[in-house]
């Protein structure tokens, strides 16, 4: 209690000494502030890039693989029936902005050199597909399909030798405008013209081929009624986070089948990106530890150089509590100034990469920082500064006055 009283009584002098000390060695102040600021940057920035990457991976998967919601047939059925009715019901749900049923089949592409590339065919209505995925925007050569296109095919970049980003799949030597032999899983082989090549720089989605329903009707010798089925239905919502509410409505409308959110469907991929995030948070933690150690060493050296001064102040009658408080206040300022500098620096850098995204093999990645990340990093660095200031100063003020003055 007495100690607390002394701290309060000495606050004015503690503040005075702290400010004088901070401003006296401006280079030291700047150095510590920069180090704390860089600690802040390293903590927030790497996490923000991984967050951006995670968001990008998820976004691409949502765009081309799952939509926000994916409906699949019941486990004991091959197809979803009455697709037109499901479409109407789904589009009536607030928040649903697009829907595209797919009929998935197997095909083998054979190029003019006889190279074969087995892959997955998706039968789509191009107009509907454009509401639920980014296929139309991802055309990198040629053009997109139109509703009544026949005799033409869209091919994923990763199964073309010319446009593939990685050699993950067998690829054919083909470009838009050329013709290719397509063998469907019902045994039909047909030469189709390549209408366009699509690619979104994502290994998990750039290996499909697309044809229209009109073309499929010929290939599979099916009527409109027989084509009113789907292997999967992609539903696009206005924004992320609406999935659960939409699924609830879908079930209320009596839509059956296995209904997945994109998180559930992505499964391992989602876990992978979450794991990356944890790794980046660990990297950030190491950044904080390094920043903490640096702050500790610098303040420790600073205090060591001030042993004589601490001894003189004690000899003058300035109590230990006041001296300690002055060092804690200095550390507080180091933390606040460093954190603020780090915040501004990080904001600037994040802002730069938002305007000029980082080019990665997966595509353009924009760093993403949540406000909580800023607050947590700021708080941790501030606490680190206080600890780094408190303990060396506490050690120094305990020293015998004469030892401090004459051996400091």
């Amino acid at each position, binding site marked *: 209690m007495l100690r607390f009283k002394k701290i309060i*009584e000495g606050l004015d002098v503690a503040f005075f000494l702290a400010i004088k000390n901070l401003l006296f060695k401006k280079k030291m102040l700047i150095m510590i502030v920069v180090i704390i600021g860089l600690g802040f940057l390293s903590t927030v920035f790497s996490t923000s890039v991984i967050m951006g990457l995670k968001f990008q991976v998820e976004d691409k998967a949502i765009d081309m693989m799952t939509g926000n919601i994916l409906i699949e047939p019941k486990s004991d059925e091959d197809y979803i029936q009455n697709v037109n009715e499901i479409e109407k019901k789904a589009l009536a749900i607030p928040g649903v902005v697009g829907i595209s049923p797919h009929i998935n089949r197997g095909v083998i592409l054979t190029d003019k050199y006889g190279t074969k590339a087995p892959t997955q065919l998706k039968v789509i209505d191009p107009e509907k597909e454009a509401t639920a995925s980014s296929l139309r925007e991802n055309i990198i050569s040629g053009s997109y399909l139109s509703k009544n296109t026949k005799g033409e095919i869209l091919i994923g970049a990763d199964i073309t030798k010319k446009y593939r980003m990685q050699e993950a799949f067998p690829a054919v030597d083909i470009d838009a405008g050329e013709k290719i032999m397509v063998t469907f899983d019902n045994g039909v082989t047909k030469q189709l013209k390549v209408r366009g090549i699509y690619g979104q720089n994502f290994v998990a989605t750039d290996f499909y081929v697309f044809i229209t329903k009109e073309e499929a009707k010929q290939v599979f010798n099916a009527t409109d009624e027989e084509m009113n089925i789907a292997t999967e239905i992609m539903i696009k919502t206005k924004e992320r986070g609406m999935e659960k509410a939409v699924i609830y409505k879908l079930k209320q409308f009596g839509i059956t089948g296995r209904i997945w959110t994109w998180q559930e469907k992505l499964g391992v991929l989602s876990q992978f990106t979450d794991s990356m995030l944890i790794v980046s948070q660990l990297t950030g933690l190491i950044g904080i530890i390094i920043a903490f150690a640096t702050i500790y060493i610098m303040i420790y050296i600073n205090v060591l150089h001030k042993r004589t001064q601490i001894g003189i102040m004690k*000899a003058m*009658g*300035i109590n230990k509590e006041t001296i300690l408080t002055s060092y804690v206040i200095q550390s507080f300022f180091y933390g606040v100034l460093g954190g603020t500098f780090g915040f501004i620096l990080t904001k600037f850098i994040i802002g730069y990469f938002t305007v000029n995204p980082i080019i990665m093999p997966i595509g353009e990645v924009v760093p993403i920082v949540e406000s909580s990340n800023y607050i947590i990093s700021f708080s941790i660095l501030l606490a680190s500064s206080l600890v780094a200031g408190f303990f060396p100063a506490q050690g120094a003020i305990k020293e015998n006055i004469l030892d401090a003055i004459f051996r400091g």
Partner: protein
Amino acid sequence: MLYLEVRIMNKKTTRKRVLIKVQDLAKHYTMGSVVTKALKGISFEIYEGEFVGIMGPSGSGKSTALHQLGLLDYPTTGEIIIDGVNVNRLSEIDRSYFRLNKIGYVFQQYRNIPELTALENVYLPLRMLGKPRTYYLKEAKSLLEKVGLEGRLSHHPYELSGGEQQRVAMARALVHKPAILFADEPTANLDTDSGKVILELLKHFNKHFRQTIVMVSHEPEQIKYFDRVIRIRDGLLEKDTNIKFNKRDKL
């Protein structure tokens, strides 16, 4: 006639208030198995308004004695009573407060706070005592004027000469009007002229403001400034000489 004068002097002395009473003061330092006895039990009294010199050869224990009196160190045995307070019995916080209120200290190497200007160095004890800003500024300026540094108020210690730095240290030690000013060889690092200025100033404060001063010195020519000299040799009190009386004796 001389006997009568001694009687009169003694009578005057005994009428003075005892400000410091030292009883069997000893200080031992232990380094491993070796015990060094810096002070072996000394006793003396210092009266209010006196300018006392503590003298003796190097290693005699004079600075050690001053450190004990100035509450910078703890004696091994013995008692120190300052202004009626047995300082050995004070808690650490009370010792700190006692130093702030009752004691001023001038070190051999000035020991000003480098981050503070001359004015800030001087007003720091008053600010620590919680005095109002107008008061501590006025007092500090006034004292710096008295020591001849009115033109150096906003200078940092590194911008001042040794003599000026020591005058700042002196002003800082006196600003809160301490009961006793301790000075540990305050001229040892100064040239003769600067040293003389410091001694003259100390004498001035002693004479005109009745400031009690206890100063460690090993320079015989400084004796003329003292009222009394306590000589220490090998940790023991060798001699306690009343200089005032001797001066009269010579006359």
